């Protein structure tokens, strides 16, 4: 009963996505999988983690998913490229590799894990595919918008242009100019790119059957690292002076502050990484938990309460998708601002000087 409802629910929510499903594979033992007890932890884990293929829906033990290329490299075996459908959703080993809990492992002839092979897995996984999709959307959308700026030189914005222009202006005026100051211009491409990159990936993650890319620690790690690198490379002498030898502070305090400031250099991007990861993943977990209640209690009556809550959280997540992209961009701009800010005391002095005149 419960699995039927599960199927029904997934079928209805994912009906549109199923249209482009290209592969179907039979589970080895359909009877066993339909009888298996519902494990909410496993279900949620499955939804929020990466996978070698893009799973859309399971109906009557048939897993419908988009196969994606598996690309593996190891010094022992060289480069191997094949379709993820070869694994038959973890039920078959292929070419000396097998899928173990979503991870690809090298196996020896007997079928047990071969730990002597260090595998570089650069497969186009579900997350990579989703991220590339977002990149394509970003490129097509903003190159088109840039085209309409050229076409309609000096005229009022139109269509997508008029939707995104206020957002671009907001990032320029209220994020970059406010946080960075007069040197904001050189950071604009980076700020706009991370804002829209995060936002679009957040939104793609909210589509049913979508990948949880922006709630993936690797994704947020990359962006935080990029922000850290840009901050460090563009930092001026006042930034370093502030960290290494905080001005205007007694000597003993300077020695205490030094390690704190150095740690602070790293905690800032670290907080960026954790914030985005936790917010997006938490949102996904809450939605899945509310829906999972139906299958835990094995009664459709719970849906009367679980589905509206899941809907409410989903709508909230739409807002969070934008908010987190904004927060990430805002804090990034703030860190850039601290890196390129002119000496504060000079500023105060200059202002005082001007005021005196």
């Amino acid at each position, binding site marked *: 009963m419960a699995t039927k409802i599960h199927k029904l629910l997934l079928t209805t929510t994912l009906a549109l996505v199923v249209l482009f499903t290209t592969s179907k594979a039979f589970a080895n033992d359909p009877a066993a999988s339909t009888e298996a007890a519902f494990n909410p932890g496993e279900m949620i884990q499955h939804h929020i983690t990466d996978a070698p293929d893009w799973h859309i829906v399971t109906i009557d033990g048939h897993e419908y998913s988009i196969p994606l290329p598996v690309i593996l490299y190891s010094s022992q075996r060289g480069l191997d490229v094949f379709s993820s459908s070869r694994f038959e959703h973890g039920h078959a080993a292929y070419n000396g590799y097998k899928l173990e809990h979503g991870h690809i492992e090298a196996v020896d002839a007997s079928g047990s894990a071969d730990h002597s092979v260090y595998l570089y*897995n650069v497969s186009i996984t579900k997350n*990579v595919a989703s991220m590339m999709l977002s990149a394509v959307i970003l490129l097509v959308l903003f190159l088109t918008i*840039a085209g309409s700026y050229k076409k309609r030189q*000096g005229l009022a914005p139109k269509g997508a242009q008029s939707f995104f222009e206020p957002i671009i202006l907001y990032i320029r005026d209220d994020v970059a100019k406010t946080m960075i100051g007069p040197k904001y211009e050189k950071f*604009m491409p980076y700020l706009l790119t991370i804002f829209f990159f995060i936002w679009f990936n957040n939104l793609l993650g909210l589509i049913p059957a979508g990948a949880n890319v922006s709630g993936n620690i*690797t994704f947020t*790690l990359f962006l935080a690292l990029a922000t850290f690198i840009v901050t460090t490379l563009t930092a001026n002498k006042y930034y370093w002076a502030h960290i290494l030898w905080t001005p205007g502070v007694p000597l003993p305090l300077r020695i205490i502050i030094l390690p704190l400031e150095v740690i602070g250099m790293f905690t800032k991007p670290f907080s960026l990484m954790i914030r985005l990861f936790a917010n997006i993943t938490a949102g996904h977990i809450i939605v899945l938990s509310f829906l999972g209640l139906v299958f835990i209690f094995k009664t459709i009556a719970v849906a009367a309460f679980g589905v509206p809550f899941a809907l409410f959280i989903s709508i909230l997540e739409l807002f969070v998708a934008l908010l987190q992209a904004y927060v990430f961009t805002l804090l990034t701009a703030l860190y850039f601002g601290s890196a390129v800010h002119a000496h504060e005391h000079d500023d105060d002095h200059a202002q005082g000087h001007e005021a005196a005149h």
Partner: protein
Amino acid sequence: MNLITPDFGLFFWQTITFAIVLFVLGKFAWGPIMSSLKEREDSITEALESAAKAKTEMATLKAANEALLQEARLERDKMLRDAQTVANNLLNEAKDKALKEGNLLMENARKGIETEKNAALAEVKNYAVNIALEVAEKILKKELKDNDAQKALVSEYLKETTLN
């Protein structure tokens, strides 16, 4: 643990994808968009400024026109006034002159008439005296042809003259 373990593959592809997105959008989207926005803002600011400038210029021009008009009006009024004055003066002068001329003429005429009248009167007097004398002479000659008559007359005169 799976959830918080960074994944090499995703990081690898993200580096490539993000680098491409950042480069392509930075070069072909954000750059042109930012510059067009700036251009448009500048042109709007410029247009507003020039509009304000035009307004001030207009006001200045209007004020200048007004001043010019006022001046012209004053000039006209002055000219009219002057013309009026000149005309009045001319008229008055002409009137005065005519009056004087008239008076003079009248005076002359009156004097002439007076003279003529006096002369005429003197002539009439002389003529009347002469006539009277002639008549008296004739009467006297006729009356005093005989003595009787002369005596009668003397007596008559004597009668009239009372000797006191």
